[in-house]
């Protein structure tokens, strides 16, 4: 969550409320995030020096602080995006988030997918190796994992093929 908010801030300073709205819009899907969670995360980021308060507006709202990402925050976001997720089940959400953020921040989103694909393939390779040398039980267990990884990989390939379309939708 923290890295996601950081990623959203990379496009420019935002108020906490705007940040929540942007998060909900992009990644919240049917479950909006609580304000409290956003504020607590922001204060943690503030404490770690990854964001700074960019200005306070006077006015009616409960908190009109505007947050901006710091350079170490940018480094963290970059590091996160270019680090593959450990291949595991149902990780599309994180990957999706990464892809969108990469697109939003003008990075090469394909790179995110390529790196992830390489990691997935490496995992699959290891499983295949195990399978080839193992007994039937090994084979079945490995195949189970392999098929799930393959599903992820297929999603990665599909997404890679649709990056242009996604970028268009996000920027609109």
């Amino acid at each position, binding site marked *: 969550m923290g890295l996601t908010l950081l990623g959203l801030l990379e496009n420019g300073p935002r108020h906490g409320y705007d940040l929540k709205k942007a998060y909900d819009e992009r990644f919240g899907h049917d479950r909006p995030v609580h304000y409290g969670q956003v504020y607590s995360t922001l204060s943690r980021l503030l404490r770690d020096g990854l964001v700074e308060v960019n200005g306070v507006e006077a006015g009616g709202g409960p908190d009109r602080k505007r947050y901006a990402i710091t350079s170490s925050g940018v480094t963290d976001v970059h590091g996160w995006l270019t680090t593959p997720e450990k291949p595991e089940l149902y990780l599309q959400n994180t990957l999706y988030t990464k892809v969108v953020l990469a697109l939003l921040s003008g990075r090469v989103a394909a790179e995110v997918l390529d790196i992830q*694909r*390489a990691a997935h*393939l*490496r995992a699959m390779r290891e499983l*295949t190796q195990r399978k080839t040398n193992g007994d039937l039980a090994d084979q079945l267990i490995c195949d189970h994992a*392999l*098929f799930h990884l393959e599903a992820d990989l*297929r999603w990665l390939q599909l997404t890679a093929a649709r990056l242009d379309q996604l970028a268009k939708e996000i920027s609109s």
Partner: protein
Amino acid sequence: MTAREHPTEQAADGPPLLEAQELRKSFGATPALDGASLRVRAGEVLAVMGPSGSGKSTLLHCLAGIMPPDSGRVLYQGAELSALPDGPRSELRRTEFGFVFQFGQLVPELTCLENVALPLRLGGMKRKEAERSATEWLERLEVADVAGKRPGEASGGQGQRVAVARAMVTTPKVIFADEPTGALDTLNGERVMQLLVGAAKDTNAAVVLVTHEPRVAAYSDREVVVRDGKSLEVELSR
């Protein structure tokens, strides 16, 4: 954990057996390859991945000397393949390379045994001798029982294994496999891949494996992605 991208560079040591440098190839106005490069070492299984129409088959055809690139070089054991005339290139393909395609590669009117023996016989080997080696390879690929049948009478999986036997029978240095399991179900595909890779490892042959299937690519040691005619290699470091 960091990641770097190396479009052309090869981190692993050892001289490349087969190398493509900045290949470009167009069919009419449509570019199929737009600066693709890769290297394969002996005994290495290299997966060439990418979406349909990305140019991976064209890359394979150029690598194997079936088709000359418009520009760029293909080096086999340090010699430029595209500079060779058709005759020696054909001979090179017959003796040093082996091919496995998705389907329809066996001559329908010859028996499976004759199909496997064909490359040896084209090289001038006596029929008996050629068929003896062919039988050995058919046994090794567990399809000795279809030796006397025509490809049409064998199942798809058996046919592909016969094709692998034909590719291996000349003990080539490089095996080019273009979607070798594309027409097979999972189990048959797995078996063909295991036999293909196993046979290649045993003879220290390199395999250039063109596929879009991750599970097939998982049999490789390394992968190159072709996208819009460009090659892309990602190297993860732990």
